């Protein structure tokens, strides 16, 4: 079932679950800022603006309903980051979780990295379903017994208890970034990871918190000469020496850490020449890349800029191999989108398990899927109205001009406050997690 059929006509997506408050009054702290499946897909983590991490776990498929995949229920909730104050610079540091990345599982416990603007933390999530009982010197509630009352000895035994999930911070990686962290990425060697801010990328060892290596530094000598910033970075899924980082100028640089200690010189530069007929006041803004993701195979990478998704073959630097327009009808609205700041929204993108379909979000709680093989695309909506269990999502269409057909929505009716910035695809199955402002929707394909 691994992504078979992909998007388009082959797969019908059904509503499965929605998490989060129903009321329209959205508390800012509840705004979801990142979504990530773990490597098996059993766990789904979300981070929010309030610095909290919520982890959902998929239930085992029940025997009663073999046609349904297991539901995702809350597994653990913890406060990852708190607001901080940098006294030296008189700056408040937001507690918003920018990214969560899972480590590959090595033992019974789960590990994830979560980061805000300045600090990365390694969290251990472990289960406890047994507890020792029958201590000689302690009462059951923990109080120490008077030793003189002890007349017999017994061996404490483990008794089952209600499952308790504990999250504990194992490492705190702090004070390494002057600018705002936008990405973290775990290396395939499972020993190191990178963290990227606007101007620098650092390499860490997961065990060592007091030292990190700077591997990319694009800060100019004179900050007045600054022309671009780093917007995203990721390690190659298979080659532990390779990583890419994207820039606000729409370029992607692939670096090889074997070449030199400081990877300011790229090994490859991926850039598509700008179409001069599309030049506008906002050309620089809409060409800024907001997300970069390697395919699972490692052969391709995908980038998201404001209006499109591009697939690049790592072997070809001159242009992408595929370009998909997400919401081209917004090109004529850029001025208004600039005024209301929507043009600065950073949309993410993701691959399905077998790299045949890519997905990204849009406005009005729409999200788009592009099937690379069948050359089909579909627009779906995450809304409470289409939230009946197992109801099939109806494809949506935006009317770009002329006469609006029935069931189409016109560009001017789109709600630009309802944006889907974060989406995630289960690594094996056709299960997707789509984050609206403060709700998490889970959809799966119709079995």
């Amino acid at each position, binding site marked *: 079932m691994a992504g078979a059929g992909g998007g388009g006509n082959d797969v019908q997506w059904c509503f499965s679950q929605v998490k989060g408050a129903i009321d329209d009054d959205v508390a800012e702290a509840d705004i979801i800022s990142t979504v990530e499946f773990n490597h098996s897909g059993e766990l789904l983590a979300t981070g929010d603006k309030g610095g909290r991490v919520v982890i959902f776990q998929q239930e085992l498929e029940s025997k009663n309903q073999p046609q349904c995949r297991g539901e995702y229920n809350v597994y653990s909730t913890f406060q990852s980051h708190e607001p901080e104050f940098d006294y030296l610079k008189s700056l408040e540091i937001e507690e918003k979780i920018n990214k969560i990345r899972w480590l590959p599982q090595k033992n019974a416990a789960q590990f994830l990295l979560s980061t805000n603007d300045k600090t990365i933390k390694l969290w251990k999530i472990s289960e406890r379903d047994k507890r020792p009982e029958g201590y000689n010197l302690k009462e059951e509630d923990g109080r120490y017994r008077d030793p003189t009352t002890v007349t017999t000895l017994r061996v404490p035994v483990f008794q089952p208890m209600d499952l308790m999930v504990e999250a504990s911070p194992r490492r705190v990686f702090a004070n390494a970034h002057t600018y705002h962290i936008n990405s973290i990425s775990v290396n395939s060697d499972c020993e190191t990871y990178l963290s990227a801010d606007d101007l620098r990328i650092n390499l860490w060892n997961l065990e060592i918190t007091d030292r990190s290596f700077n591997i990319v530094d694009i800060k100019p000598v004179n900050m007045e000469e600054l022309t671009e910033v780093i917007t995203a970075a990721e390690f190659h899924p298979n080659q532990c020496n390779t990583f890419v980082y994207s820039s606000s100028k729409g370029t992607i640089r692939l670096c090889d850490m074997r070449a030199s200690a400081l990877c300011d010189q790229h090994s490859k530069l991926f850039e598509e020449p700008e179409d001069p007929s599309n030049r506008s006041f906002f050309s620089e803004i809409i060409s800024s890349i907001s997300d970069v993701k390697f395919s699972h195979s490692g052969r391709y990478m995908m980038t998201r800029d404001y209006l499109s998704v591009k697939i690049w073959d790592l072997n070809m630097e001159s242009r992408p191999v595929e370009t998909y327009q997400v919401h081209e009808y917004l090109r004529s609205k850029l*001025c208004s989108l600039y005024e209301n700041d929507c043009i600065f929204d950073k949309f993410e993108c993701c691959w399905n398990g077998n790299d045949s379909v890519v997905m990204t979000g849009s406005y009005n709680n729409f999200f788009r899927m592009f099937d690379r093989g069948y050359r089909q695309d579909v627009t779906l909506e995450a809304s409470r109205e289409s939230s009946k269990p197992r109801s099939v999502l109806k494809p949506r269409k935006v009317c770009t001009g002329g006469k609006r057909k029935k069931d189409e929505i016109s560009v001017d009716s789109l709600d630009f406050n309802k944006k889907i910035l974060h989406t995630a695809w289960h690594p094996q199955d056709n299960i997707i997690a789509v984050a609206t402002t403060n709700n998490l929707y889970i959809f799966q394909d119709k079995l």
Partner: protein
Amino acid sequence: MINTMECAVDAQSLISISLRKIHNSRTQRGGIKLHKNLLVSYVLRNARQVYMNEKYAEIYRMQQYEEVMTVCNEIQELNPLDLAEDCEEQSGDCCGNDGVSEPASLCCALLPVSHLTAVQSAHIQAPSACSAPLSLQSDEVCKETEPSFYRSCCAEAYPVSNCDFSTVNNNLHCNKTTVLDLDTHVVTTVENGYLHQDCCASFQQCCQGAQSPAKKRKVDFEYYISDIEEVPDFTPCKRAKFEDCSYANSEHLDTSNISNLISIFGSGFSGLVSRQADFEQALNGQFCSKQALASLGAWTRAIVAF
């Protein structure tokens, strides 16, 4: 909600919106966002470029009209019967269509600008909605050539207060001397002894760069007019024609070397005499350097000698 009618990209309003965003970002929680401010500064740069190009095109058109009228008036004083028609023809040839074609901008550089200051003080308000796409094209060329951050020259003379511009990443200062190398299209700005260099796209931009030296040439022209009385044969109208002829007929000149010619003129009479040396200098050097233009006799002597 987005307006149905997309705004007709008013450069001035974009500038004010951008400045407001930059100002607001300073009080935002979490500190100044470098990425967002960088992008806003790009919009600010683009909008200012369009605004200034539109302004300059407006000024140029007015200047062109007034120059023609001035010349014709003078001709009428000298020889009202014969040369009035000639003058109109020549100004039509010389100054091209609407001030944005290549030879026209050269002409702009060469024409005296006696009324420029008058025009400036007239406080031109809203820029006319013209060369916006053109300016953006030049901006696009700019993007391709120079990776370093573009900073437009800030002309002193515009009534708009450029001194109000202050951005995180973009220093927009007043009181700069701006020179344009038409060969390399590099705008060199000298500010408090600190040199800035920009790429500058095309000949359309040269008008912008030519503005401060043009201001100086006003003085030259006045000197030149007094020469006219002394040398009755050498009329302003014939001067215009001369310029055309010099470009067309001289075997030393072709279109690509016209910029060099201007550089030579700008660097003074000695440039004409030792033309070889100055060619190299013009290629690397600066168009209409302040010192050269300060020498009043340069223009007239150069032209007469030719």
